[in-house]
């Protein structure tokens, strides 16, 4: 009798807390949306025209020609499900302004209607992100939940990439979060299904596929041999159906070759025009240093014709001394790097750890992958935010990596008018993370848990807060690099060495990224 009453009360409590969580999330999302609205006239990259072209292409051509069309240089290179998404958006675009979806008239169209429309689609599609965060925040206590909302919904990097530069990362990461939230709840089938949807929206997310595979194999397909096989088949059918729906029509029209060619353009070279801050930056720098030193020693060094700054590298090796890097090598390296994560997932497939494992996989993909964009760091930094709100140990790590990740995106916005905006976004974010986590730490210290926390080593021995000496010096270094790039470089070198500030940012942020990878690897090894 009393038990029943109690459970009733419990559900009432969870219901009210759910309502207050939704209210809070709506508040955070509302504030973020106001900021996004104000960003409508800001700088937009060629990605804006890319997506506009896809609206036109998918709505005015038959499906069989989507992956063939070359009217614009910005050809369709996302998987089919995303193309369907664009086709869906095009329905509304045509209602608002038919020029948007015109394959020829719409080229480089930049009237108010198209700008407002496309910006609004990004804002609206962010609802998926909000939903994902909401699902992942269910088991958090109120204060941590609010921090999580602030970190993800107000993420400066997401705002910079999606709402200034223009992309749909919030939407895509939202799908990832939804998938992970299902896994955390133990609803593996739905989680796998959502991940398949994500892969068919953007295949770059496939980096975590091995991990998903191992995890689902061990966690979902358990309970004896036959039961395991049955579950494996069910999961296969669920994932397969997603792929069938998205790729099926193209298979039917015999278009798969074109689709795959577009989706995997390996001709693009190891690094993007602006080097993403990953492992390969060190490789290139090492090569250059070697060439320089050997040249000084009197060896004849052939300098490569292709430069790294052009973005498009042909067949010739861009390296002077070190061996050429091929896609296959990067593929193997990424797999090797993920291996500890796979082992962990195999040995101990725990729903509580899945977010962390997937974040680790994306970190590896970012560090060692082929033609990585700086934007890809969003994939794991957003996930690390979720991990950070659960343990203070990770909060410290997150504080550093979120700043590095956001700062590495600064070169995306090179126009003057966005300068104060990106700086204020980053500074305010760091302030928020710093002080909210600090107050969490001081709170948890003042609690009874104090002893427990200490014995677990969750707070470092000095107990002073989030940052150690090295981290502080590293972050101050970012400030120096920014001041150098913005003011001193121009002053000292004038127009000479124009690539130097960008290179400095890449190398310096790569250090932070490498640190993050090692930190996560260390954690994995400790908890294997």
């Amino acid at each position: 009798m009393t038990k029943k009453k109690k459970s009733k009360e419990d559900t009432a409590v969870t219901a009210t807390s759910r309502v207050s969580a939704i209210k809070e999330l709506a508040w955070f999302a509302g504030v973020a949306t106001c900021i996004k609205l104000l960003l409508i006239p800001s700088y937009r990259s060629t990605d804006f025209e890319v997506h506009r072209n896809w609206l036109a292409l998918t709505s005015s051509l038959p499906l069989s020609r989507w992956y063939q069309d070359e009217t614009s240089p910005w050809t369709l290179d996302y998987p089919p499900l995303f193309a369907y998404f664009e086709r869906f958006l095009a329905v509304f675009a045509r209602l608002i302004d038919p020029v948007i979806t015109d394959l020829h008239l719409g080229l480089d169209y930049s009237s108010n209607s198209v700008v407002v429309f496309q910006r609004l689609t990004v804002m609206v599609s962010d609802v998926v992100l909000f939903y994902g965060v909401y699902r992942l925040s269910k088991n958090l206590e109120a204060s941590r939940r609010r921090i999580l909302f602030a970190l993800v919904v107000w993420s400066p990097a997401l705002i910079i990439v999606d709402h200034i530069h223009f992309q749909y990362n919030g939407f895509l990461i939202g799908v990832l979060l939804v998938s992970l939230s299902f896994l955390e709840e133990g609803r593996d089938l739905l989680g796998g299904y959502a991940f398949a949807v994500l892969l068919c929206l953007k295949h770059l997310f496939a980096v975590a596929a091995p991990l998903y595979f191992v995890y689902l194999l061990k966690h979902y397909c358990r309970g004896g041999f036959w039961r395991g096989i049955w579950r494996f088949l069910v999961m296969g059918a669920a994932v397969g159906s997603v792929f069938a729906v998205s790729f099926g029509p193209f298979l039917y029209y015999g278009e798969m070759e074109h689709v795959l060619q577009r989706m995997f353009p390996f001709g693009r070279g190891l690094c993007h025009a602006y080097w993403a801050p990953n492992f390969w930056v060190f490789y290139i720098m090492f090569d250059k240093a070697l060439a320089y030193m050997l040249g000084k020693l009197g060896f004849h060094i052939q300098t490569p014709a292709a430069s790294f700054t052009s973005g498009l590298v042909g067949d010739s090796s861009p390296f002077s001394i070190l061996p050429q890097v091929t896609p296959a090598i990067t593929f193997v390296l990424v797999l090797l790097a993920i291996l500890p994560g796979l082992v962990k997932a195999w040995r101990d497939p725990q729903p509580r750890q899945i977010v962390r494992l997937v974040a680790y996989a994306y970190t590896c993909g970012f560090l060692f992958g082929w033609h990585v964009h700086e934007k890809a760091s969003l994939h794991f930094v957003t996930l690390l935010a979720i991990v950070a709100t659960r343990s203070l140990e990770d909060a410290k790590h997150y504080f550093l990596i979120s700043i590095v990740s956001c700062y590495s995106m600064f070169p995306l916005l090179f126009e003057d008018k966005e300068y104060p905006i990106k700086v204020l976004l980053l500074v305010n974010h760091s302030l928020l993370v710093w002080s909210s986590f600090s107050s969490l730490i001081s709170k948890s210290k003042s609690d009874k848990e104090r002893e427990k926390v200490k014995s677990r080593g969750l707070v470092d021995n000095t107990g002073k807060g989030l940052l150690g000496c090295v981290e502080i010096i590293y972050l101050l270094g970012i400030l120096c690099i920014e001041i150098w790039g913005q003011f001193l470089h121009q002053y000292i070198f004038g127009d000479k060495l124009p690539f130097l500030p960008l290179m400095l940012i890449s190398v310096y942020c790569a250090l932070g990224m490498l640190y993050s990878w090692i930190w996560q690897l260390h954690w994995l090894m400790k908890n294997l």
Partner: protein
Amino acid sequence: MKEEKSRAIGCLPVEMDWRWSLSSIVLFAFLVRSLVSLHPYSGASHPPMYGDYEAQRHWMEITLHTPSIHWYHNTSTNPLSYWGLDYPPLTAYQSWAHGLVLNYFHPPSVALVSSRGHESPLGKLLMRCTVLLSDALVFFPAAIYFILVYCVHRGKKDASLWLLALILLNPALIVIDHGHFQYNCISLGFTVGAVAAVLAKHDLLASVLFSFALNHKQMSAYFAPAFFAHLLGKCLKRKYPLLEVLKLGIAVVVTFAVMWWPYLYSVDAVMEVLSRLAPFERGIYEDYVANFWCSTSIFIKWKRLFPTQTLKLFSFGATLLGAFPSMVQQIRAPSDRGFLFALLNSSFSFYLFSFQVHEKSVLLPLLPASLLALDEPVIFKWLIYYAMFSMFPLLCRDQLVVPYVALLALFLLIYHTPHGRPHTKGMGFMAWKWLIVLPVLVSIVLHITYLSFKPPEKYPFLFEALMMILCFSQFVIIAGYANVKQWMLLGSSAGTDKEKKIL
């Protein structure tokens, strides 16, 4: 325990230390301003006269390249018909200082004569930066000073951040300064500083700061009755009233003398500047401003019935009459809350009844309303909404509809921050919900009609007139309520006693 509680009631729903929250609110307010500055300014690419942006830029050009005695004088390089300077000398000095910044980074944008109608991305960015700079140097410090004096030093630390956020994120102020383009943040900032100084009992400092405000924009005189009455009332309660009044008077006179120094060499020069400041030839109202003269002109054609001279007298008398009750209240019983109410009432009286009022002048009554937000949150929200609405046609012309919507929404969100606002007691007067809800519904319909329909040809300004009448009716209600509220303070003398006890 107590400390924890206060942390939970910060402005941000995330628990943070007070100082960190304060800095993040300040940074956020800057962020919002820099975002709004991406949008178009008034008169962008509209030759030959452009708009307020061009006026401000032109003043930089004039002050930078001509001697100060020619600033208000019609010369070949400074034809007063083309955006002649019509603000007091501090605006001219400010233009000169900002002109230096522009001249350093982008000389063509402020070159004499040749820069007229200058429009370039860099020029726009620099101009926008000068407004941001003014905000950082004047309005923000003043607002922080105010919340320190009004909240933190009086044991209301919990609520201070919410109040600060509302003062800094006032959508009307942001959209006019950083969208439309003006420097209201300077004169309003000095006024806030003066108010804070009054509350902190630094009356001399207050007089100097308010003189600054008056010397930046003559519209600051909207607050003059309240300052005058409150300070006079305070002086009268002291031991040597005359001496106190004299001290304040000297402070004001000296400040004015310093500001007007370049023109003090002859009476004619002073008169020339003064005549620039009072443009009576423009008529009692322009466009569709939601004040008494314009709204009643639908029934009584003031402009046709009376000569300008008579109308001047009318408006002067009506304004004084409107401000009179609140002045009397403050002279009789000067109190801090009463002072804030008096600021609201006297500025409202000016807005509603004075000569030549512009839509943008609604910023002036908004300021004391924002300072009163803790005491009268509903009034502030109500006023903000209609103040924005009364400027809607103006902002539409400037293509600032998106910032209009976003800033208003942002303001409402901040106002309703979860755990942000300390619980307020219900107000009997506010029980009539329909009084609020019905006009809001009408205004929403008007917003939509204005954007999507063309008015009938016979009445091209039908929508503007309807908006004006609606806003005017709301303003009258709010002003009436605020006057009653102020006088009720007098009745409950306990109010003043309580205040004394806390101090």
